[in-house]
């Protein structure tokens, strides 16, 4: 059938619809276009260039040739709270119940490089994640977990080099060499400045540390994903789908630029870059977003950076369902939201997935809630059929048109950010933050004006009993952690240590690290690893780095 014929028929249809709508208006606040046809997508002649085949450039249909027909995505539940011991129990529970990868949540002092006994940590120890002060805590965190078998993702950014070093050291104690380790550190400082807030150092030394990690891992920890360039938090902060991938890919461009400037060959590190997307409520838009993001990144790597290896062009992605879309009202409804978001991530072709629990708008999740969230993934994987055919929505007029639309919007933003001098400059100017804030405010106003309905929040509300059985982190965690730290710093043996730490060795290692920080040509990783092995604390190590590098001054705007 020719386009002319479709066009003629479409006009007839639209004329008929106009009459119907005049009599019975459609619902308010809908997207303008009600129907998609072959006229909205590129013709078959564009197929091989723009859509192609799974595992092949431009990877629109997925990064692996067989996708979930080979094996399901990694079911990786983000967890961590209280002490290393409590978190270790949760990890072992998740593995015993079919979780296939670990994902560590650290508390805020850990994420910002402070020890639990620092005055600034008061009230925060063990709250949003597990408290890690030294290698001693890390040993407990992975007790009875074989680091040669499991893959571990760590949500750690500014002090990623320190936590990765601790992980390498624990593995060594277990007899697992670094080149066998699999996992990911988030290590994405730019989105911390723009959206998440756990920054420490200014951009320049931060980019140096990140580049040091790329370089160190390419030689010593080759199976490790050295960064998870994250749109998740940008979306959580309020961005749109297009902004999520655009700002994140702009960050990715900045990291690749920095590594190339430091003298690395793009194909030596690009294959270990990974991404992190949000699975939001609008199922089809999310699927289109995943597809568009792979195409944009592939083109960036091939055309802009001249990557040669296909692996360097693949956008491999971890996904988490949207925490900000969970409601405190009627929390069981969140199970359904998460199921739909899971479907979106799977149809979008994610490599791993965390599903949120129903009670997370209220508190950290209970074990029962986490189990439901994990089972949600297992149901989608095994029962829904969504994992049986690769990229099942390809060819949908709507999804293909939306994939093209999101790609175009992303390119427009990337161009704008290039004009501002790249992602670092755009963040320093507050541009990216402002765009996100504007979208967040619009969303909130749409909810308040009922242009957007959230079930249980602004429609279908009801009187509810306050929820029972929420998980509570005891305030004694802070006390316990501080006591352990005092013993460690006093040179007393803790955990399974046969003797206490050698404070002279700690001092020497920290002095060596300080010198290395001052020498821009020096890779910091070996020095950090050495300090970690003396049981120098996270705070001690980060304080040395703070002394040399200074602190980031945030751009505050409304």
């Amino acid at each position, binding site marked *: 059938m020719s386009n002319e014929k479709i066009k003629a028929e479409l006009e007839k249809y639209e004329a008929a619809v106009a009459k119907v709508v005049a009599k019975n208006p459609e619902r308010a606040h809908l997207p303008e276009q009600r129907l998609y046809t072959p006229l909205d997508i590129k013709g078959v002649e564009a197929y091989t260039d723009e859509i192609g085949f799974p595992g092949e450039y431009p990877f629109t249909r997925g990064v692996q040739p067989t996708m979930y027909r080979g094996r399901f995505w990694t079911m990786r539940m983000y967890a961590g709270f209280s002490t290393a011991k409590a978190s270790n129990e949760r990890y072992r529970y998740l593995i015993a119940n079919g979780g296939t990868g670990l994902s560590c949540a650290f508390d805020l002092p850990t994420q*910002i490089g402070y020890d639990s006994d620092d005055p600034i940590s008061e009230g925060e120890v063990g709250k949003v994640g597990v408290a890690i002060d030294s290698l001693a805590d890390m040993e407990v965190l992975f007790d009875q977990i074989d680091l040669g078998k499991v893959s571990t993702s760590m949500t750690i950014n500014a002090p990623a080099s320190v936590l990765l070093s601790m992980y390498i050291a624990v593995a060594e104690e277990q007899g697992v060499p670094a080149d066998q380790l699999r996992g990911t550190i988030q290590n994405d400082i730019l989105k911390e400045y723009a959206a*998440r*807030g756990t920054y420490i150092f200014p951009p320049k030394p931060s980019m140096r540390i990140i580049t040091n990690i790329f370089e160190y891992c390419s030689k010593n920890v080759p199976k490790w994903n050295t960064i998870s360039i994250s749109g998740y938090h940008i979306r959580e902060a309020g961005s749109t789908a297009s902004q999520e991938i655009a700002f994140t890919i702009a960050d990715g461009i900045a990291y690749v630029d920095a590594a190339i400037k430091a003298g690395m060959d793009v194909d030596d590190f690009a294959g270990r870059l990974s991404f992190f997307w949000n699975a939001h409520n609008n199922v089809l838009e999310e699927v289109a977003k995943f597809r568009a993001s792979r195409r944009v990144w592939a083109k960036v790597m091939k055309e802009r950076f001249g990557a040669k290896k296909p692996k360097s062009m693949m956008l491999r992605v971890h996904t988490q369902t949207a925490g900000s879309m969970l409601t405190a009202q009627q929390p069981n409804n969140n199970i359904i939201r998460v199921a739909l978001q899971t479907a979106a991530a799977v149809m979008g072709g994610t490599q791993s997935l965390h599903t949120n629990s129903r009670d997370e708008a209220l508190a950290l999740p209970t074990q029962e809630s986490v189990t439901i969230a994990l089972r949600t993934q297992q149901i989608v994987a095994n029962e829904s059929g969504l994992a049986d055919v690769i990229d099942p929505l390809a060819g949908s007029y709507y999804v293909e048109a939306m994939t093209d639309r999101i790609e175009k919007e992303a390119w427009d933003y990337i161009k704008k950010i290039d004009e501002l001098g790249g992602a670092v400059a755009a963040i320093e100017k507050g541009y990216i933050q402002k765009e996100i804030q504007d979208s967040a405010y619009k969303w909130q106003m749409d909810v308040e004006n009922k242009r957007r309905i959230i079930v249980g929040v602004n429609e279908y509300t009801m009187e509810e009993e306050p929820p029972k059985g929420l998980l509570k982190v005891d305030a004694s965690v802070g006390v316990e952690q501080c006591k352990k730290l005092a013993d460690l710093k006093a040179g007393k043996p803790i955990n399974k240590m046969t003797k206490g730490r050698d404070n002279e060795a700690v001092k020497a290692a920290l002095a060596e690290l300080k010198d290395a920080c001052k020498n821009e040509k020096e890779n910091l990783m070996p020095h950090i690893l050495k300090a970690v092995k003396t049981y120098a604390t996270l705070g001690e190590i980060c304080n040395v780095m703070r002394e040399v590098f200074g602190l980031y001054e945030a751009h505050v705007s409304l």
Partner: protein
Amino acid sequence: MDKIKVLVAKPGLDGHDRGAKVVARALRDAGFEVVYTGLRQTPEQIAEAAMQEDVNVVAMSILSGAHPHLFPKVVNLVREKGMKDTLIIGGGVIPEGDIPALKEAGIAEVFTPGTPTTAIVDFIKANVK
């Protein structure tokens, strides 16, 4: 009274400020004068800013669970500075069960997820002195 002046503050180490910024903007759109502290403020810094800016309202947001420790501390420091009438409110991911103790400590109202910004505006208008 003159234009109501509000300090929107993020105590503690929590970096989630979508809510704080949305509320700040809504308060501004409602005709209030709004100052936002930015992230990672100690209770001392917040109390100091409240005094320097001579605000009528301190509105804090915490999503990290540190509210039982930090909210009361801010109230005490603000009162110690002689600001007896300053209205102090809080919001964020705050379990229902924690609210009575926070109110006991002097937090006038606690706004939890799903609250329309208009409810915060109305509360301030009705309760500011």
